[in-house]
């Protein structure tokens, strides 16, 4: 597809490439945008921009903070990959949030109710989470295929239903147990055989990196391989680019929608696993919320590319982790959310601007070639 004919969505989701120096211009522009806007916001709120960044970096490069950011990022990464799978096929799975929460809840309750040798136990919990996530997402897939319901609408609705279903299940008459004296309520903690031990990856910190970071890396590699090296991946991307063309080349689009939605949901189901298996060992009121929406932002930030998403997830996690240190220095922690939002918008705007520049540059080149007709051809011949 030529850049001139691409739609905004194509450019947004990283389907159109930038040539040569322009591919460098976009990220630089994004950084300049984000830096400027954040500085203005910081100045308005009365915090010195450079000092604020200094505090964040100072804290962010400490081994402990790096571990915290890595642990946070593995969940973000899985969630963003789940979103990216949908994006690649023009499916907007807004329901990752509901999918991972429901999956984590059911998997936590299931995991606590069985005992198996360690690797099997972990695998069983992960499998259940994937199945629940896939099942929940498939509802939206089915609705789209059978009834033509936009998956954007249905997944948003399913988020609300997942929340309600989750709080119904999280009751001591059903999946939850009460802890004496606590106002918390959660599933029975997983036995030791389902607890994934941390890896001492970063020297200089007693904190360990969540063992499920391996799962995140594996999913990233798998995402890349399946999408770029298999027939299925080709079909998926082809359907995303142009449905009529995909149909013409023999792709069963309805089947692809169902499979892509289920796959996205299955990976979404994994998003809660680093926290469940490596940190909390139980799904309680404290289980983090909103991973799915963070995933959407990170998928956009990483432009659906497995490596880009990894950078995006780390950046996001680093900003989240630094919110506590900002508060210690009397800087409002909401600055972090503003920064995150600004960065996503900057990346989108910068890439779009550079794309447009590329398109108009191409058009100028073509028109000057046409105007200067023979001369250009003569030069070309001599060269």
């Amino acid at each position, binding site marked *: 597809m030529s850049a001139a004919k691409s739609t905004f969505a194509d450019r947004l989701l990283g389907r159109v490439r930038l040539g040569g120096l322009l*591919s460098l211009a976009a*990220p630089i522009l994004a*950084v300049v945008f984000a830096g400027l806007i954040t500085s203005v916001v910081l100045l308005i709120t009365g915090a010195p921009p*450079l000092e604020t960044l*200094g505090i964040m970096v*100072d804290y962010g490069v400490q081994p402990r903070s790096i571990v915290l950011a890595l642990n946070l990022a593995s969940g973000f990464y899985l969630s963003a990959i789940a979103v990216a799978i949908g994006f690649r096929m023009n499916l907007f799975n807004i329901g990752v949030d509901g999918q991972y929460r429901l999956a984590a809840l059911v998997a936590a309750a299931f995991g606590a109710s069985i005992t198996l040798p360690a690797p099997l136990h972990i695998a069983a919990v992960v499998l259940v989470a994937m199945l629940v996530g896939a099942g929940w997402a498939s509802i939206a897939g089915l609705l789209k295929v059978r009834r033509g319901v936009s998956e954007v609408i249905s997944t948003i609705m399913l988020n609300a239903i997942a929340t309600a279903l989750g709080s119904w299940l999280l009751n001591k008459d059903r999946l939850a147990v009460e802890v004496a004296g606590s106002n*918390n309520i959660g599933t029975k903690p997983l036995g030791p055989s389902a607890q994934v031990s941390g890896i001492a990856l970063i020297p200089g910190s007693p904190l360990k990196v969540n063992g499920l970071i391996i799962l995140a890396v594996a999913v990233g590699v798998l995402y890349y391989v399946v999408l770029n090296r298999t027939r299925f991946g080709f079909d998926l991307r082809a359907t995303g680019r142009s449905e009529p063309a995909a149909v013409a080349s023999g792709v069963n689009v309805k089947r692809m929608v169902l499979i892509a939605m289920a796959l996205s949901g299955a990976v979404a189901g994994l998003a809660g696993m680093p926290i469940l298996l490596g940190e909390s060992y139980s799904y309680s009121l404290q289980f983090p919320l909103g991973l799915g929406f963070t995933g959407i932002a990170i998928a956009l930030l990483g432009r659906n590319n497995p*490596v880009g998403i990894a950078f995006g997830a780390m950046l996001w996690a680093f900003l989240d982790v630094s919110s*506590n240190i900002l508060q*210690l220095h009397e800087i409002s922690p909401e600055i972090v959310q503003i920064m995150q939002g600004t960065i996503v918008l900057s990346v989108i705007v910068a890439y779009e601007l550079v794309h447009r520049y590329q398109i108009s540059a191409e058009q100028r080149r073509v028109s000057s070639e046409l105007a200067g007709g023979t001369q250009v051809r003569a030069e070309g011949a001599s060269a």
Partner: protein
Amino acid sequence: MLQNRFGRLTATALAGSMLLGAAACGGSEEPTTSAKPEGGASSAAAPAEKGPKVGLAYDIGGRGDQSFNDAAAAGLDKAKTELGLADTKELEAGSGETEAAKEERLRLLAQGGYNPVIAVGFAYSASVKKVAAEFPEVKFAIVDDAAATAPNISNLLFAEQEGSYLVGAAAALKTKKEHIGFVGGVQVPLIQKFEAGFVAGAKKIKADVVIDVKYLTQPPDFTGFNDPAKGKTAAEGMFDAGADVVYHAAGGSGGGVFEAAKAAKGLGIGVDSDQAKTAAADVRGVVMTSMIKKVDVAVFDFLKSFTSNSVKAGTTVYDLKAGGVDYSTTGGQVDDIKIQLDELKQKIISGEIVVPDKSS
């Protein structure tokens, strides 16, 4: 497009490293920057002699929620002036954050030399337990939780159902339409204690009074404690359905409940703080009474015991008897029924009435 995948990949990788790199540039300013916050802290601490440095970790909402967190803040403020604290630091939770973020918050405080550290809200249960074990010399307190126990943790608990019982009775006495409402922030066991007490108190006065119950959000969505718009919508629904008194146990969302009450010419009942004093000025008039949960007293008492070296680890229950919960009379709107309310209060204190803490 396919063969250029790699170009896109490098571009994206660059984008990420650039964003991080940009941040790193700011880091070169570091020597001048890190000096300043410390300087600010020490100059602030200068007038006080050498009292304790107190760290406070709020739940979602933080200082300024006009309710639960503000009550804790009031206790801290009182202690600051009366006990001569050297320095205080207040950190606040973000919505939907992980357990690790809570732990890190407490750890940063303990590491920064803040002792004692007070965790406001049951959400800190697991993290206090973990961090308290890492810092055995630091005293911790947690509000609303008895599950985290250690030799250096004090658990400050409240009998919310007893105070709610009294305002439930007040609502039933004041309603003209025999129809009242309860707006809970988030449907969690803690808030269900408020509901249980409120319903029991109202039914005690009028067995057939209609009580609408609505929770703003379901866990794990905790925004119900911090979303006035949701509170307003829920309360509007109740007033439209015929209620004329609505009690809220919804933290920062309560402001919306009062706005709805004002618009419907109904009455609201506040929670945690004396909201006839703390709510936005234009809606104070509709706050008939408040179920005061004296988190400020608990926080102050704890800090006082710290300065006098008599911190008691384990559970302290602030109930009606201990004056830890009560109803407020600011504005004089419940003066006419005060006799009946005080009678019920005495019965609860004497044990004649046992208020349920779970809804039936």
